[in-house]
């Protein structure tokens, strides 16, 4: 018997909890298994006594038994507290960093996502409508190449071409130095529109083009293949032939076919969004984009347990939320889905 959509949403929502718990546990264990700790990373080669070292460990809460550390942090997280940083600087709420860094990643992700979906739909549609031709082969080849591109390498190529060679786009950062932008959401493009700061808007757009394109092209390959295969499937169906028989225009038929082929693409969007965040780490590093990816990498260098745990859990929660939304959209789009 089919359940109601409300119940379906609740169950799917509750499934995020064990996912996060498992991920937190894995990260917690991995960080503790590795030798070294944030206090040692900070102390480095300084000459301090074992007593001073012990004092610093106590300050960081690392003198407690592991299970106490584990449940302490879990308890804090349940109250929306991600603890404080343990290195450079010590004692700053991790949440403050997440507030600062997450919008940058979200902005990059949204733009990268848009580029990848648009490119995927375009190339997939072209391939399907030109099935069996050289263009089709070319598009399929594009999808394979795009999918296998290594982000740092590809990003650097774009930096060289559009930055160093043509000098038309910046190669790093989010905005030109010296431009003041009032922070509202932390998404620079949106903030510049909201505040009517068009200089900042132009600068933010110019800065996001290369990283979003890098990320978008690399992730578009999967869409190309999926859209093409679905479109080929739909275009061979009876209702499409009847459109042609009734003299409906080519572009309209393609549009109807695309709408029908779109449902599986929504599922992929959900999956891709998680991959997109992973890809954002590499993209951020390549383009010196001050987001969550570079934050986590920096904190790993310092072995900053709280910051890494907090960032990973936050990431996981966000990805879980996106997956949930995608599932709901999918359930609403496709009447065959059973709640």
């Amino acid at each position, binding site marked *: 018997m089919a359940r109601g959509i409300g119940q379906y949403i609740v169950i799917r929502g509750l499934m995020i909890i064990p996912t996060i718990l498992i991920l937190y546990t894995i990260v917690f264990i991995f960080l503790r298994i590795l*030798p*070294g*700790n*944030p206090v*040692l*990373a900070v*102390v*480095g*080669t*300084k*000459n301090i*006594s074992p007593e001073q070292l012990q004092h610093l460990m106590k300050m960081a809460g690392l003198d407690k038994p592991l299970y106490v550390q584990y449940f302490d942090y879990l308890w804090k997280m349940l109250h929306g507290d991600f603890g404080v940083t343990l290195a*450079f*600087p*010590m*004692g*700053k709420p991790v949440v403050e960093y997440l507030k600062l860094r997450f919008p940058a990643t979200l902005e990059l992700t949204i733009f990268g996502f848009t580029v990848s979906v*648009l490119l995927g739909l*375009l190339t997939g*549609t*072209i391939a399907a*409508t*030109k099935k069996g031709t050289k263009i089709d082969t070319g598009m399929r080849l594009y999808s394979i190449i795009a999918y296998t591109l290594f982000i740092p390498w590809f990003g*650097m190529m774009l*930096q*060289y071409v*559009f*930055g*160093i060679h043509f*000098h*038309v*786009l*910046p*190669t*790093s*950062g989010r905005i*030109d*130095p*010296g431009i003041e932008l009032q922070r509202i959401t932390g998404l620079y493009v949106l903030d510049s529109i909201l505040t009517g700061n068009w*200089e900042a808007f*132009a*600068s933010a*757009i*110019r800065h996001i083009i290369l990283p979003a394109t890098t990320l978008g092209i690399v992730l578009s390959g999967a869409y190309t293949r999926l859209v093409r295969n679905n479109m080929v499937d739909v275009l061979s169906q009876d209702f499409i032939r009847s459109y042609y028989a009734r003299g409906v*225009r*080519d*572009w309209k*038929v*393609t549009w109807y076919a695309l709408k029908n082929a779109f449902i599986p693409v929504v599922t992929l969007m959900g999956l891709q969004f998680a991959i997109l965040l992973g890809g954002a780490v590499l993209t951020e*590093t*390549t383009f*010196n984009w*001050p987001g969550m990816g*570079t*934050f986590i*990498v*920096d904190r790993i*260098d*310092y*072995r900053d347990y709280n910051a890494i745990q907090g960032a990973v859990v936050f990431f996981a929660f966000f990805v879980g939320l996106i997956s949930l939304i995608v599932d709901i959209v999918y359930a609403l789009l496709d009447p065959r889905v059973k709640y």
Partner: protein
Amino acid sequence: MKRKVLSLALLFIFVFSVVASGCIGGEKTTTQTGGAGYAEQIVIGVTDKVTDLDPANAYDFYTWEVLNNIMEGLVKYKPGTLEIEPALAESWEVNEDSTVWTFHLRKDLKFADGTPLKAQDVVRSIERVMTIQGDPSWLVTDFVERVEAKDDYTVVFYLKQPTSYFLALLTTPPYFPVHPSYSPNEIQSDQTAGGAGPYKIAKWVRDEELVLEANPNYYGEPPKTKRIIIKFYRDASTMRLALQNGEIDIAWRTLRPTDIESLKSEGKYSVIEVPGGFIRYVCLNTKAEPTNNLKVRQALAAAIDRQEISNKVFKGTVEPLYSLVPNGMWSHIDAFKEKYGDGNIDLAKKSLKEAGYDENNPLMIQLWYTPTHYGDTEADLAQVLKEQWERTGVIKVDIKSAEWGTYVDYARKGQMQVYLLGWYPDYLDPDDYTTPFLKSTANSWAGTGYANPTVDELLTKAQSLTDQNERTKLYEQVQKILAEEAPYIPLIQGKLFVVASSDVKGVTIGPDMIFKYSTIYKEKS
């Protein structure tokens, strides 16, 4: 239909190309122009990080540089030299045995926000460092018994022992007066109130951007450039691209040797070379097999060819070093060169034979390095060392690596046999290049386990003497013992490179390696 889809595709590509070709915003230079005939801002790129904007806890070279630009001490180095000149203090006296130092402050000193700066502020700031007991506090607590404000303009330091190089210590951030808004007993890593330096902090986003603006209340000559923007990069290659694309005016710490070489050859940039006081060396564990054997350590020291390391790994951007005391510093002697030469394979083989090793019974060692802390060249350095040692035909080297947090843990616990480390000076005196390494009560961080009562005695004596000639003799003795016993093998001394667009002028960095931004400028274009 086919034509329509193709048109759609072409339209998309066209729109994207138009956007990408800079129609939005167009090309933008990094600087606007300001008054006084100079550009208003200069953008500096760095791959280093700022740790704590608090002199009570900051203990890394780049953060010290930033603090040196937003704060000042009682004395400072004359730009580009090792000559100490008055700063917040206009004059000073010292008693006969260098234990009481009296400083007279300038009148009308102010912090960046206009708050008056008096002798009590100097005392408050130094006592704060003593209270907080942060990483660099030993630079105060090891030397200063107490500090007093005799009146609004007189500060007196009473030292624990005669310290001839006290003025050099005073140039370090723990002695800088800080604004009263700094908490008296807590580290404030993101405090932007600063002190009384040529610049003040206008904006600070950790690991992203630091904006400095000229301090209107600075007592000295105003900075030539009103605004300095520091952009933080994660890696050298991104920073290099930013320089080539005109997004930054100066690429500072630290470009890779290969980047410096190729930017030099482009001919579009000024490449300013700065003699660096930082050194790189190999540590040998004197408490564990097989490096507890003196002959083994001597063999490893003899086989190293520093010139080859400099050329192969660092493309000539460093110089060979034959002592822990850097080249050019008084008392330096080429102790290791005198004893072993350079790349002396025969001597290495001889020592190994005396230690009981030959081709049939080779010496097996593990060489450790840390991949990111000392830049991208570290793996290459380890590889070249391995090749040099294996040239003897009697040594087999297994290279291992660990991240910084793990690496220092292993070092402290004495878990590594042979490992690479580096050193930036705290203050410019031979004492800072010898005591932390060789004095048995001060070198636990290094994990070599080295202890020699004679060396301890020599170093203690050298610290308390005021006559430089006498101190020189003692440090020379120490360096000879170091070469003989080889608990550390010095490798190279770094140089620093500032790579700037050709219109940037006035870069002056002295032996203290601190880049003072107030002298740099760009002519109005």
